[in-house]
């Protein structure tokens, strides 16, 4: 017995040391590929040296080279070297990105992750989806845990300037809306001032919470505001009747209404006169214009293809076709794409594997009842805001 | 201060007087907070001498021998054991502890170790002896104290007398020059006392230097070279056994003897 105990103790002591060693080694690896921005600022300071050689200790010399390259380079190089794209998503946002039973992620945000992977790596499936909560998403971008964040994140001034990240072109123009019950006397034309005395529920840690509180103050109405960490509980409580009104981005409300409205009850979404503007789009690390170009032009490529009506099916025809902008975009004249470090057929891959903007919209947002026509998400020719600079 | 100065070398037989000092206490004082347990004890124990310390409870007997092993730290005076003075010096403390064995009233065997492991623990880890050698010694010692068959049992499975004999064997395994006994028989049932005392007698006959705190008068009379009587932190009388029992010098000793005999 003693012998066993003795050995056990000795072993535990050793193991605790290892655990300490492991965790330090661990974060070293975490940094090795993503730490480039900080490290490059400090030049050859002690910290970066520390990370560098711990990364070295396991990797071969060429991995060391990668780190060197990345020091002055872009996320683009890192992604190419890694062979997969780390893409931050919500994992729990209906129609935008949700986790399926087999672990795959579906939704328009997820599709844009795939589109970027198709552009950079030629394979739409070379994506690691990292599910992130609202609270941790921006830290993940700033720390480089993800290369790209597609997590219905609103582009705001403070976020753009503050926290070490940049925003790409908007992929969905959203706006905060409210949803109530028809049985409470609401209609599609109800005004916010009518919710006096209501129990309003929304999700915590987002702009919607602040918006509704401020609005209630401005309108001088009394509301009880309950906030929850995730929107499922909000909807649950709305169904149960514990909440009178729920509010979040209009797209989510439409989705919830389409999927969860019980039999015999009528939910109404208040008019789209926005309480707030919520432009949603890709987010990436600050001051990396190479990577920003790649992401932005992937989005633009889907929009331009949409303008020309070129989808998955007719992409080959378009490549051989006579619209010069489209031919250029699809890599007919390769230098535009190669100039930004992508293969010439990058956007050909995007359109052929993922389709154009319309196709992605219809495939993901259509089923939950969201329509482009008449909304801000219509193409610019149809009076919407979806617009891309020319590919020249 | 109670001033009953006793000569530490009193009542020494010429044979003993010729030998070297093993333990030498000079003016040892010890306080527990406000309570003074030792009030200046002077004592000399000669090589191979068996000294029995008597006295009513609370008289400082246990404190004295615990100071000799530095289980308690004395605050004033000097204690020199086998030529080494007890100070804060780690090396000296280690040296003395491995030379002085101690047997406790409550045995203090390690309940989670077998008898054999109890005995070999210190020889292996303190004396750095090979395990096989330590075990051989342990078995030999167990034979000497008369319980070789109990080697693989746990202390909880032994009777009190057997446990105390294991405790003695455990101390002896360190090959101490001096053995301290702190009331070794007072936690035992009467029928077990003799088996422990017999072991102690054998040990005394083999020439071990021993300091024994006990209430066993028969043992004291039979085995001791000298008797020390303590009261209230002072040494009241030092005498050889016959003189102590038949013709005590101090009144306090007489009173004590009359109560106890």
């Amino acid at each position: 017995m003693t012998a066993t105990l003795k050995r056990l103790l000795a072993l535990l002591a050793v193991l605790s040391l290892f655990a300490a060693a492991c965790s330090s080694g661990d974060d070293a690896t975490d940094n090795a590929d993503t730490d480039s921005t900080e490290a490059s600022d400090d030049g050859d300071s002690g910290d970066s040296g520390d990370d560098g050689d711990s990364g070295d200790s396991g990797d071969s010399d060429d991995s060391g080279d990668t780190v060197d390259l990345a020091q002055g380079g872009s996320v683009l190089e890192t992604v190419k070297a890694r062979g997969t794209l780390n893409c931050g998503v919500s994992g729990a946002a209906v129609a935008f990105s949700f986790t399926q039973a087999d672990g795959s992620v579906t939704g328009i945000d997820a599709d844009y992750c795939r589109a970027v992977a198709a552009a950079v790596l030629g394979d739409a499936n070379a994506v690691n989806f990292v599910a992130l909560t609202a609270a941790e998403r921006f830290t993940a971008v700033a720390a480089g845990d993800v290369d790209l964040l597609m997590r219905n994140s609103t582009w705001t001034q403070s976020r753009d300037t503050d926290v070490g990240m940049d925003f790409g072109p908007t992929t969905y123009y959203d706006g905060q809306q409210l949803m109530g019950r028809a049985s409470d006397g609401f209609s599609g034309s109800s005004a916010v001032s009518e919710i006096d005395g209501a129990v309003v529920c929304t999700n915590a840690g987002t702009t919607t919470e602040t918006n509704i509180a401020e609005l209630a103050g401005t309108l001088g109405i009394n509301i009880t505001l309950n906030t929850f960490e995730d929107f499922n509980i909000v909807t649950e409580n709305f169904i149960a009747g514990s909440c009178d009104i729920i509010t979040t981005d209009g797209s989510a409300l439409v989705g919830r209404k389409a999927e969860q409205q019980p039999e015999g009850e009528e939910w109404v979404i208040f008019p789209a006169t926005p309480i707030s503007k919520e432009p949603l789009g890709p987010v990436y690390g600050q001051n990396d214009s190479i990577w920003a170009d790649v992401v932005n032009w992937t989005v633009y490529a889907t929009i331009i293809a949409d303008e020309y009506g070129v989808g998955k099916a007719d992409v080959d025809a378009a490549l051989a076709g006579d619209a010069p902008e489209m031919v250029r975009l699809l890599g007919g004249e390769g230098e535009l794409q190669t100039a930004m470090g992508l293969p010439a057929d990058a956007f050909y891959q995007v359109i052929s594997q993922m389709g154009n903007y319309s196709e992605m919209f219809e495939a993901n947002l259509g089923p939950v009842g969201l329509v482009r026509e008449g909304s801000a998400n219509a193409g610019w020719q149809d009076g919407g805001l979806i617009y891309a600079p020319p590919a020249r | 201060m109670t001033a009953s100065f006793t000569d530490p070398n009193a009542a020494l037989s010429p044979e003993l007087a010729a030998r070297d000092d093993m333990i030498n206490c000079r003016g040892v004082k010890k306080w527990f907070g406000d309570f003074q347990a030792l009030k200046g004890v002077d004592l000399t124990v000669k090589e191979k001498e068996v000294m029995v310390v008597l006295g009513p409870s609370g008289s400082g007997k246990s404190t004295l021998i615990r100071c000799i092993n530095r289980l308690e730290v004395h605050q004033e005076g000097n204690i020199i054991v086998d030529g080494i003075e007890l100070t804060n010096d780690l090396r000296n403390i280690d040296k003395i502890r491995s030379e002085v064995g101690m047997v406790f009233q409550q045995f203090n065997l390690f309940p989670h170790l077998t008898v054999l492991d109890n005995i070999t623990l210190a020889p292996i880890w303190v004396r750095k002896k090979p395990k096989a050698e330590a075990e051989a010694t342990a078995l030999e010692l167990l034979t000497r104290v008369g319980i070789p068959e109990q080697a693989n049992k746990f202390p909880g499975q032994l009777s009190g007398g057997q446990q105390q004999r294991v405790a003695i064997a455990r101390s002896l395994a360190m090959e101490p020059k001096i053995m301290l006994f702190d009331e070794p028989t007072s936690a035992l049932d009467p029928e077990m006392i003799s088996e422990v005392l017999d072991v102690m007698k054998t040990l005394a006959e083999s020439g071990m230097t021993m300091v024994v705190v006990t209430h066993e008068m028969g043992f004291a009379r039979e085995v001791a070279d000298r008797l020390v009587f303590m009261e209230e932190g002072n040494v009241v009388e030092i005498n050889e056994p016959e003189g102590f029992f038949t013709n005590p010098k101090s009144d306090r000793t007489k009173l004590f003897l009359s109560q106890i005999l």
Partner: protein
Amino acid sequence: MAAIQDDLSMNLEAGGVAPDVRPDTPVKDPVQWMKENLFSSVGNALLTGVFVAVLGGLLWWFVGLVFKDSNDWDAVATNIRLLFSFNYPAEQYIRVWFSLGMLLGAVSLTAAFFDINPSMSVRKLGINASGLGATSLIVGVLPATPSGARIVFLIIGALFLAAGVGTLQAVDEPHKKFVSFPTMLLTFGLSVVAFAWLVPIGRNEFANGAVIDEGGFANPSTKIPWTIMMAILVGVYFLARAVKPMLPVKPVQTFLITFWVAGPAFLIFLVLRDPTFDYDRVLKVDIPWAIGFAVVGGAILYWLTKPMLGEIGRLVAVALLGVAVLNWVAAFFGWWSMLQKTRVSFLVLALFALAAPTFAGEKSARVRYVGAWVAVVALGHWLITGINTTSTLDIAAPPFLGGFTISLVIFYYVMLVSFPLGAIMALARTSTLPIFRVMATVYIEFIRGIPLITVLFFFSSMVSLFLPNGMDLSELAAIFIGYTLFSAAYVAENIRGGLQSVRRGQFEASDALGLTTSQRTIFVVLPQALRVSIPNLVGQAIATFKETSLIFIVGAFDFLRVANVSIASQPDYLGQNLVGLLFVSAVYWVFAYSMSRASRSLETKLGVGSR
């Protein structure tokens, strides 16, 4: 049910209030039994009435909850994989099965080599089966049960009741006859296999999110592995029993303990991470360094363990420690660069050197000590090299998975690290040195005074603030560190309880024998203290396990988040929180309950209660 029956009898044995049930009490006839146990007095009869109403009402309500119209149990059945391993790639699943197989094999080996043979008397078996049958019958009769399930419940209830009562009637003196452990193991294995092959679960084959197999029965990729798992569980046990007489038991036991402490870490690391070594670099850099440390360090340690070396050894050890610390300081300020693992190795060497006098001794002991050092070097260098190497696996949240696996992994690592940390703090808190004591006390009481959730928030959102520029921790690592520091304070309190139960005499006896303070602590005090605190430590482990659910709040994709958020966000199962939560409760319950049962039998075995 079975377990509760156990509790009942335990209560009767332990309780001074209830009468003892002697093992040879004959089985009474039901009327007499009811008279004694339910209607012994008017008050008792009244109580029985009240509880019949309460229990019946609760059962009715619960059955209604489980079979509510709006519940779609397909949500759980379809998402089982998501719940347990989140988005772990399906084509790599063989690794998960491999590690599960290792663990099950270890369970069997442990049972065989530690003689763990829980057996159940036939009487208890019969009573449990009848109880289960009766409950099932009642559920079948309740109006809340949907008509489809009603028949199943009635049939199962009737079968179990008949089997239970039949067993009790057929076997005479059923309390003296026992069902052996191998039989129970075999029955369990066969039941699981039968369940996998015979019970339809449905919706289980996917192609990129779309269900392509709506068939009723679990698909072969689940059935066959489970059959193999059960074959391992049962087969390894019988194999081990067969070879046990030929093998030395002690070393196997030591190996098994080592496996249970360190094995899961290896499985997580090796099987779920799979480093791709660059062998050129391994040969040129890693192996030479490891050999260098092993040889030079071994020589130093061999010299340091010389008996009676004196303070020169201590000085050398302190000097080594100085060098080791300096290396870290240098790394911090960028004075000179060095491989991370050399820094770690220096530190470990210094600690080994400091501990050397404690383990000093004759030649064989010294060789053993050096051997331990070499093993540590080999292991450590391999681990660090592996960790710093890219993995062949594309898992979204390296190095862990999500779902239940992450709960288990966090639980395992937290316990592994907080245990030694807690032991050190407990020693510091009971030490006689005032500054150590005050520091440990302040830390422990501070941590115990605040809720875990605030600690997790602090670490998940603030750790990067406290680190120098350029250093960063992943979210999960931060959570893990926070949870470990939290848990260590509780572990320390439990061990302190054990330390205080070690009697003063033990210390004195050790001192009298000349053991040094560290020898006294390692060989005498800690073993006794740990044994006393085992039940409390297991209790603490259960609490730690349950509280892994709190990482849900700081945003980790653990079991609870998958059930409550991820599944409820799938268009097919929008809003199916209730079924997810019920399933999560059931799984947590099974694990926590088995752990508490195990700890209770451990307590009885160690006789801690009777001390």
